[in-house]
């Protein structure tokens, strides 16, 4: 049940994020964002903040951002995240 709903989410988010991710940056640092499938969020590595993606809509208002704990950051960086890097 849980897995099923997550798969649905992934499909949704992936489809929309791809087109958007090319132009999105972190609202605070203007540095590239990385999409983490595990947590369904966009992560700004420069300042260690994650922004949620709700129904495929990235929420990049600074207030919505969550500061990532040190441990979580490590796992997400090494985890199965599709890294998106922009110049």
């Amino acid at each position: 049940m849980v897995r099923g709903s997550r798969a649905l989410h992934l499909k949704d988010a992936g489809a929309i994020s791809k087109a958007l991710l090319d132009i999105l940056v972190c609202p605070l640092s203007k540095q590239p964002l990385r999409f983490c499938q595990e947590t369904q969020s966009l992560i700004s590595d420069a300042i260690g903040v994650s922004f949620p993606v709700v129904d495929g809509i990235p929420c990049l208002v600074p207030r919505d951002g969550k500061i990532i704990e040190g441990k979580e950051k490590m796992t997400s960086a090494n985890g199965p995240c599709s890294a998106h890097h922009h110049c």
Partner: protein
Amino acid sequence: MAVSAARVFAGEWATGKYSRLFPSPAAAIAAFSCAIAGLASFCTEADGVLSSRVKIFDRDLKRKQRDRAAWLMGGKNDFVDSVAENLVDRLEDCKKTFSTALCLGGSSEAIRRLIRGRGGIEKLIMMDMSLDMVKHLKNTEQNYVSNNLETLYMVGDEEFLPIKENSLELVVSCLGIHWTNDLPGAMIQCRLALKPDGLFLAAILGGETLKELRMACTIAQLEREGGISPRMSPLAQVRDAGNLLTRAGFALPGVDVDEYTVRYDSALELIEHLRTMGETNALLQRSNILKRDTALATAAVYESMFAAEDGKIPATFQVIYMTGWKEHPSQQKAKSRGSATISFEDIQNHFRSNEFYYRLFLRFRTTKLFMLRTKYLFIKHPNILHNTTQKQKCKIKLKTISIQNAYGEQCDVNIGVTLFTYTKNVLQDLSKKHTKEEKDGYFCNKMKKRS
């Protein structure tokens, strides 16, 4: 006396078409007290995160108001439609096409609906600070499949624009950006997000907006409470708009102003309209209490001071349209002083033969808007009043002239007039003022539009 009149009037309102929303007059009065001049029942505290910056508006409250606007939206909104139409209409005048466009919050729904392939937009990114608003936009997407637009959705704050540099060709903001604390900062971020030669188009509310309500609020508050508190947000003045564009670093800045008068059945309806637009007060220093007495007195004062003979209540909305381009080598630049070979006097004389062209020319001299970068130079007809009942616009090309522009370059400019085709008055006006040739041009174009 005034209060009892207002009570009856509120009662009527509640039993009328809004009876579904507020089952009893008492509820309507309570709702009005709550809504007048935008005092929301949910108030957020000022946060200390960005305390170093000047904060005028409560952005979190504004976000909640926009959430609410998303729930209330749906009805016909002529005012917003005509502003959006006026704004996207400018795209038609540009030689350039804009493949990637960002539509900032405010009346983005109207922009998407009215864009109708103008400006050659292929990818449209809709951004709003309210998730509910973005969801609403996304859910109504299927109504606009015929637009052939790839529409993307995101939640973002204009004060912290999360867009990569040099990635957009157009930024449109319709009635939203005036709620930012740092307007120049927001505009600079828009400019950075634009590619060179990208266009920034914005409509903001100007200082004359809702002057009637401002007066009514002040008088009512003085009368009932013996003092005043800011019930309405400060807005940019027209003279500031040009400076804003220059300060944000836009090239070829252009500013023009339009005043709309919207007529409501009652002051309560005005407040309801403001709520559906999410344009209610979001001042950080607002007073959190509004007494019912004061609210009703405001409605009564408004009615007694401004109501028309037919009982309708007018409200003024002043809209400032701003246009700016991101710098690009292809854009014209001012020539050095004294290098011009023709004086303005000569050009003036060239136009003097025809009073109508002369008048157009005088307007043209004062606006640098879109010069050279557009196919047409359109000037609003000076004798036609603009109001929100206008149905359709029509553009007439009157004459192509070769002229030295303000930068000392020779260029061909098509002079035209933007007319609104709905009334007979326009035709009568034309027949009175202008030559046969001009009228012929008008009708030819009109026929073309129809066929």
